[in-house]
């Protein structure tokens, strides 16, 4: 456990001690702030007096989900690709640590960072509540949904990062499919009618929808956890590949 904590802390230190994190955090909060402002103006202009959850918060959380699609790949791209590039992975894999602990520490640290970014957006509900009190409870569901969504994106990013020693390539290959799935989630005409039901079933975005209106459906929770577990499993298989590849 001490070994896991050591690596987890080292990962957190690497995030919070590196300038790129502050660039990502600034961009994330700038875009989140922009969406908060524009969605609020929209709500005040066209939906004032209507249900605030459906007419404002849902729109904002769906927009925050889009910002995460860009932010998470920037956070995950270095996780294993950097270790490969530096050559530190070999040494790390010879310490008294299980492969699972390495993956868990890296993913856990990344999720803490995402949670920190999301915590920065908590100021929005507080501001709105100050002007017009509303029920907070549905927002917990929405934030839980964002975290679960980020968990899948981060585990997918970690998996991609384990495949290459190029951070840029890892970031690109993480962001691109997420962006494609997002496009398909609102532009269904782009998908063939035969593949549409499949796309809907596996789409991260459709499973996020209930959370954005404050509903926690256990099937969606299970879906997100299952998808995260799947990419963690795939990452472990990549690390195991050293057994037959004979190199880092």
């Amino acid at each position: 456990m001490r070994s896991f904590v050591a690596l987890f802390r080292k990962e957190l230190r690497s995030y919070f001690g590196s300038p790129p994190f502050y660039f990502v955090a600034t961009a994330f909060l700038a875009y989140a702030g922009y969406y908060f402002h524009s969605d609020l103006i929209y709500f005040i202009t066209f939906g004032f007096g209507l249900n605030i959850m459906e007419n404002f918060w849902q729109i904002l959380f769906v927009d925050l989900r889009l910002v995460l699609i860009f932010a998470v790949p920037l956070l995950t791209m270095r996780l294993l690709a950097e270790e490969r590039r530096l050559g530190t992975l070999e040494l790390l894999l010879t310490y008294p640590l299980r492969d699972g602990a390495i993956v868990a520490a890296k993913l856990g640290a990344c999720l803490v960072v995402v949670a920190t970014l999301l915590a920065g957006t908590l100021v929005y509900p507080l501001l709105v509540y100050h002007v017009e009190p509303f029920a907070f409870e549905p927002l917990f569901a929405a934030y839980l949904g964002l975290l679960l969504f980020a968990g899948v994106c981060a585990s997918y990013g970690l998996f991609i990062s384990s495949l290459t020693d190029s951070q840029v390539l890892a970031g690109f290959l993480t962001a691109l499919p997420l962006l494609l799935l997002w496009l398909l989630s609102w532009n269904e005409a782009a998908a063939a009618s035969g593949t549409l039901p499949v796309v809907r079933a596996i789409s991260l975005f459709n499973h996020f929808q209930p959370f954005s209106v404050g509903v926690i459906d256990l099937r969606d929770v299970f879906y997100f956890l299952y998808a995260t577990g799947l990419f963690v499993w795939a990452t472990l298989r990549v690390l195991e590949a050293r057994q037959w590849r004979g190199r880092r």
Partner: protein
Amino acid sequence: MIRSELLTKYYGSVRAVGGVSFSVGAGEVAALLGPNGAGKSTVMRLLTGYVSPTAGRALVGDVDVAERPVTARRQIGYLPEQVSLYPEFTVRRYLGFVGEVKGLARRRRRAAIGRVIEQCGLGEVADRHNGTLSKGYRQRVGLAQALLGDPAVLVLDEPTVGLDPVQAVEMRELIRTLAGCTVLLSTHNLTEASALCSRVIILSHGSLVAADTAAELGRRLEGAGRLVVRIDGPPDAVAQGLSALPGVLGIERGEPDGQAGVRFVVLASNPEPVQRRLAAMAVAAGWTLLEVQVKPPTLEDLFVRLVGSEP
């Protein structure tokens, strides 16, 4: 302390090592020798649990490395061939991280870091970032992280490779101070192996060629010797003629040194008759024999005899 039992590793269909068995006793310093591609690094990676064997087993103490890798790794300090460090960490902080990963409690960790910093001569760079260190200091930090936690076994993959002569001597001195630790080090440098190690393990093409104490291996060469000869004649023809002489185990051609003739080192199973044949050959060919010296065999000679090529 270290036991390799019929250790075999295939990467896909490629055999990296096959049926390698040897042991290194507690407190012994052993050298793993072999030409490039002999399987030295694979054996080391198998011993550290970085990869698992296809067949056979590696034991550290009584622990099977493949079955209980985490337990085995607690007893091993490993210095890989390419020492890669996190550049953003200072030496002290990096060692703190490694100590924590190795499970050392805070107080013990602090004491251990101070000890290895002193032992490896890192005092003046302890608060510098790893990314700013010279190759020699990086290698020292690599050794320091391997020493953290007082591992019973040290596995050092080419600890002096890439170092300048002064740094290499310093690293050898450092290794010499590790009394009481079981050390397995791989090297291309036979002088280094002779100077540091009591046991020698020789690999070639993934197979074990010899594993014994340096003294015992020396006895295998009893009767053999090295002839240092200088002949004035066409170098290629001389080399060919020397290699073809009965009783010659191997030859090494010297670089031109500005003196007359070409210098050859000839390893012979019995130097005396070879010396006579050599003289007769030179006379018959019309070459001038300028110098002949008989010297006792070295580890290098044994290597050439067993492996048949340069390390």
